[in-house]
């Protein structure tokens, strides 16, 4: 697969081209330019770091959607041994956009559940571009209950543009499938760690997103609506997606500041796609640390904390005394 270049990565690409030219020149002329090459390599590393440190919200959305960004199965391959995929919702079908199964993380049993995108046309058709049907959410819940039965913690990895907005999704009640997951995930008596590894697309992401800890990768986003969708509605024009992305406060640091996620996992310079092995190591360490902490919490307390965590989300004004409904307070 040829490298996929984001608009803001163009200067890096240009430098890499120059570096290649220099190498070719040195080889053809048999001249030692190793000093120059090293200088240039350092410059590229520095450039990549600087560019990624200054990404805007929309740039980060593009990184989160990068087609070479590691997906669930890449992380499982890197982090786990003996991953055993379990299929089907026992009602209708086996959704290929939400997958799950048993895996071992450093000798620890974990039920892994997550969304999976494809990398080329064929696999994207199979995975429906990471957009699940109702059966995906129902399979996810079936597997979560299985984990609860055997006392295994649950890790969900989220990377989806959203639940699939199709005719069959509606005919099989995707809204109900998501709602039931939200309700029942609050009562599962095992630890749940949620990680947004790419796109956190609205209800389709939240449908496997209720947990004791919610982590997010540095250049992932999590949003109530896609920036394009928001732009189409509020700006009447999809090309305002960059403005919408800024307004929605959907980046990892924004979400951490708002108390909507617990932890931001730093990505390697140039993003997770630049060094999937390093990203996997970071993720694995974070999962192990969080699971260990949650393991020590008694179940009743765990459920109480899980409830209170989401209960506290919301910002509103409240008068001391009930006011007549017809006199709205001045908005602050």
């Amino acid at each position: 697969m040829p490298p996929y270049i984001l608009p803001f990565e163009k200067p890096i690409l240009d430098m890499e081209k120059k570096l290649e030219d220099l190498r070719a020149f040195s080889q053809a002329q048999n001249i030692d330019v190793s000093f120059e090459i090293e200088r240039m390599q350092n410059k590229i590393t520095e450039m990549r770091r600087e560019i990624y440190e200054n990404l805007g919200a929309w740039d980060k959305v593009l990184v989160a959607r990068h087609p070479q960004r590691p997906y669930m199965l890449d992380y499982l391959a890197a982090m786990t041994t003996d991953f055993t995929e379990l299929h089907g919702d026992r009602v209708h079908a086996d959704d290929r956009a939400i997958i799950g199964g048993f895996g071992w993380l450093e000798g620890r049993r974990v039920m892994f559940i997550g969304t999976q995108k494809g990398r080329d046309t064929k696999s994207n058709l199979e995975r429906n571009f990471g957009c699940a049907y109702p059966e995906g959410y129902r399979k996810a819940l079936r597997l979560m209950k299985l984990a609860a039965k055997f006392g295994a913690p649950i890790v969900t990895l989220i990377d989806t543009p959203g639940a699939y907005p199709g005719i069959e999704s509606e005919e099989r009640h995707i809204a109900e499938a998501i709602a039931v997951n939200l309700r029942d995930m609050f009562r599962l008596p095992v630890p749940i760690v949620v990680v947004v590894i790419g796109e956190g697309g609205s209800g389709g992401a939240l449908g496997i997103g209720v947990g004791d800890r919610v982590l997010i990768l540095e250049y992932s986003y999590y949003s109530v609506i896609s920036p394009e969708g928001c732009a189409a509605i509020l700006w009447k024009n999809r090309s305002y997606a960059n403005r919408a992305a800024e307004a929605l406060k959907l980046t990892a640091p924004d979400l951490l500041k708002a108390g909507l996620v617990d932890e931001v996992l730093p990505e390697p310079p140039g993003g997770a796609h630049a060094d999937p092995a390093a990203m996997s190591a970071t993720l694995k360490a974070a999962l192990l640390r969080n699971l260990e902490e949650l393991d020590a919490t008694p179940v009743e307390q765990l459920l109480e904390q899980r409830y209170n965590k989401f209960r506290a989300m919301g910002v509103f004004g409240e008068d001391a005394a009930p006011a007549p409904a017809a006199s709205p307070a001045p908005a602050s």
Partner: protein
Amino acid sequence: MAFLRKRNYSTVKVRKRDMPDGLWLKCPSCNEIIFKQELEAALNVCPKCGHHFQIGRRQRLDLLIEPGSFEEWDAQLYSVDTLGFTGVAPYLEKLEENRKKTGCRDAMLCGRARIGAHRAAIGVMDFNFLGASMGSVVGEMVTRLIERATRERLPALISCASGGARMYEGMLSLMQMAKTSGALARHAEAGLPYISLLTHPTTAGVMASFATLGDVIVAEPGALIGFAGPRVIKEATQQDLPAGFQRAEFLLQHGLLDMVVPRKDLKAAIVRLLDFMMGRPAGAPAPKPAAPAEA
């Protein structure tokens, strides 16, 4: 409360702002020109074709509860612009505009009322206010309603209507789906009934949380009910949508709804459901045994 004062007639009074000016209006379903008074007398249901017009929160409440039994809860909550959302239409302007339009602070009315012989926690969403989108206030009011119902061991009824999440509040609005669903998990665990009434239109984030978590899900005829909007689905799939797609009758057929009930029969239907789920209250007459079928 003024709007609950006793009336000597049985129809529900429509406030002026619920209807466009003029004495006549055209039914969007059958194109018949209807005399407004006639429509009002028929609970805002088209006398010709049965099209259910949207109604405001007060009218909806009057339709569902015993007169004078309503005690309002949590009216002191109001929305704030936590993200500083500007763009084409700033959130604060939108809020102000909708407060003026409806005379209400946000899209939700909550409280306790009597329904038949039952004390119940009741919530009514009002589409007139920003499309009854769910932001922090709607989510908090629903959550408090359900939590209080759990504490006071009350059944809960929510009349739903919503265009979805309130984008202006970003991820906070999405998280209201989780919050409200979590509260319902506890209400259910306490063995208390929850009836969800779906009115036109109920979609998106509300649909994917408390609207579809009812022990019994009731809908009004013709209501548009779904997760994604029809336009979004058409765009995403490039397919023609089946006849009646996402309408209440379609969803009854596809197994989501327990029943589709015309507006005039709603209260009686809900009372029957509560009678069963709560157990018939003390002192209530036992139902007459059904007449044996003709032999």
